[in-house]
């Protein structure tokens, strides 16, 4: 509790507040732009935060992460174009409301639901992360190895695209990429092909800039001609804040959806898409008399509360265990690492001045999300949506390239970003999912080191992972997450066949 108060005090320092404000503004604009999401924006901003004070840097990124998923709901509601994938479901009832002339009301509902969802998950982050971190401090190498396996297997099991085998392939490719550079213990250069630039491994930030920023540009370029957003007329928005009566009616839906979102957010790999569908589905079941899909306020409130609830709680695995559960938290890991900080259980004891403000930032950001969101929705969303894709691509490319260079003042890193941009694009084409790849790249060396240390402790016996109770439980849980989606799929196809 003491830590939380220190965090609160530090977040309210002027520099930090300003960074949070700017982050929220960037996030709202980026979220509104179709094709640009939180991950891309954070990847581009990390090099800029490099020279900043760690607290200020983190506040900026927290602001972006909190606001962008809300920003995605503007075009979803006004134009039926989800600004980010997390607002796909919001189009179902949001756009029909706009067609009825209630676009402003829908935006207001989305604002209230987003803010409440975000705050609820922020509270969960604040209570859960320090508690889990305390438990994780007792972990040895065997437990850590099992923990990383749990992280990977939930991501592999939960990722929708591709199926189990392809997700595993994604993961193995990521782990192999992580082995590039000097091996742990021996220092022997692996897969460096004689390049000194590769001795320390491929540097993480240029890699992420490539995977998110550049491959996103390639994706946008592919569909640039059909440029839906800039040709559609953005409807005028009237009154935004919902009446108190409507607000009161929506509170149960928002709360339930926020809890669903927070719960799903904590599980590595589960993510926003799953949260919004489950929350929407749950709302449909609770209100059987309402015609969802025709502009029901609950249909806007449920997914928006759920996706914003994922934001805060998705940071739980990273902050408490050092294992990022989704792409955004992998980016936060990168951002903390270039500041010389290693996320994980020790962060709360060694650097409470960073750990707690980070968490509190997720709560305080919503103070800005609310007014700025209304402002952007009402006045700016029209202008932002008119930016042509070509211009956007040019600007994003320039930012990506400069950012990749700036991290280490090294032109080689520019090539890394280009290479991984192309690789990311190929991954999309082949329907290989991203999350297992990224998580594996990030966790690769940790897995290898802990695996080898455990095997040294046990004189080479793999049974050590089954003999330690915590590691055994974690491995059983991994198996559960890996196999469950497969079993439900098999049951599903059997049902289809018997029908």
């Amino acid at each position, binding site marked *: 509790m003491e830590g939380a108060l220190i965090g609160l005090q530090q977040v309210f320092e002027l520099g930090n507040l300003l960074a949070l404000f700017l982050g929220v503004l960037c996030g709202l604009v980026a979220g509104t732009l179709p094709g640009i999401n939180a991950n891309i924006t954070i990847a581009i901003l990390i090099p*800029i935060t*490099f*020279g900043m004070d760690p607290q200020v840097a983190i506040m900026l990124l927290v602001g972006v992460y909190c606001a962008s998923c809300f920003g995605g709901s503007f075009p979803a509601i006004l134009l039926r174009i989800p600004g980010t994938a997390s607002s796909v479901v919001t189009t179902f009832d949001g756009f029909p409301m706009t067609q009825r002339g209630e676009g402003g009301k829908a935006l207001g509902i989305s604002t209230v639901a987003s803010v409440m969802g975000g705050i609820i998950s922020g509270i969960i982050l604040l209570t859960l992360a320090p508690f889990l971190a305390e438990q994780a401090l007792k972990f040895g190498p065997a437990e850590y190895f099992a923990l990383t396996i749990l992280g990977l297997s939930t991501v592999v099991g939960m990722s929708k695209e591709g*199926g189990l*085998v*392809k997700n*595993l*392939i994604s993961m*193995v*490719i990521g*782990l*192999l990429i992580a*082995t590039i550079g000097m*091996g742990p*213990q*021996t220092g*022997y250069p*692996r*897969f460096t092909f004689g390049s000194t630039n590769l001795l320390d491994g491929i540097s993480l930030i240029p890699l992420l800039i490539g995977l998110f920023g*550049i491959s996103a*540009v*390639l994706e946008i*370029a*592919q*569909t*640039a*001609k*059909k440029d839906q957003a800039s040709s559609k007329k953005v409807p005028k928005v009237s009154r935004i804040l919902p009446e108190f009566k409507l607000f009161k009616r929506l509170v149960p839906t928002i709360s339930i959806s926020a809890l669903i979102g927070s719960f799903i957010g904590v599980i590595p790999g589960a993510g926003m898409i799953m949260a919004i569908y489950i929350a929407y589905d749950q709302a449909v079941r609770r209100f059987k008399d309402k015609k969802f899909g025709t502009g029901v306020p609950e249909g806007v409130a449920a997914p928006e509360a759920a996706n914003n609830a994922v934001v805060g709680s998705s940071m739980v695995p990273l902050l408490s265990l050092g294992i990022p559960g989704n792409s955004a938290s992998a980016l936060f890991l990168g951002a903390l690492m270039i500041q010389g900080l290693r996320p994980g259980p020790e962060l709360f004891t060694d650097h409470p001045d960073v750990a707690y403000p980070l968490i509190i930032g997720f709560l305080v950001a919503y103070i800005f999300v609310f007014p700025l969101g209304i402002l952007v929705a009402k006045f700016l969303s029209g202008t932002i949506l008119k930016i*042509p*894709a*070509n*211009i956007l*691509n*040019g*600007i994003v*490319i*320039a*930012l990506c*390239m*400069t950012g990749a*260079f*700036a991290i280490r*003042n090294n*032109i080689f890193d*520019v*090539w890394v970003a*280009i290479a991984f*941009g*192309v690789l990311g*694009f190929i991954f999309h*084409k*082949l*329907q*290989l999912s991203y999350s297992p790849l990224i998580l594996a790249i990030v966790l690769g060396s940790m897995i*290898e080191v802990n*695996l*080898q240390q455990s095997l040294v402790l046990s004189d080479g016996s793999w049974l050590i992972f089954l003999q330690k109770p915590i590691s055994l439980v974690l491995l059983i849980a991994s198996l559960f997450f890996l196999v469950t989606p497969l079993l439900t799929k098999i049951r599903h196809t059997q049902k289809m066949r018997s029908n």
Partner: protein
Amino acid sequence: MDWKKDSYLAVFLLILSGFIFYRTMEMPSASAFFPELLSILLAVLSVLLLISSIRKRGTEADNEQAAKEEKLVLPVVLIIASLILYGILLQYFGFIIATLVVVNFVIFATGYKKYIKGFLIACTTTSVIFVVFQLLLNVRLPAGVFFS
């Protein structure tokens, strides 16, 4: 034709895993252990992918119509080319010229028609990034081999 893509991918990965396994043989055993394990895993997975893709053949052959959603290839190729150009220009001509050329290239090569506006945006982008990184963040952006 997803199964075709998958089977090509599987064959490629199988060859890759063989190559990786071969490279690990010359490493000291402590360093080789993990990548070796991974290469074997990759080989097993690509065989599984190959089997499942061949089994899928025929069941989805008629879906071609749906898959033929209009996708543009040219802009993607042009942008990749411009990125490679950027890397080369950065080395020899420095940040300002590289960025200016590539941003213009990306904007116009993908079909933007308002020439003056596009050019001005490219100039503004380059100068804003230059000011932010070089002057505010103290990053020494490359001046280029020819000018330093």
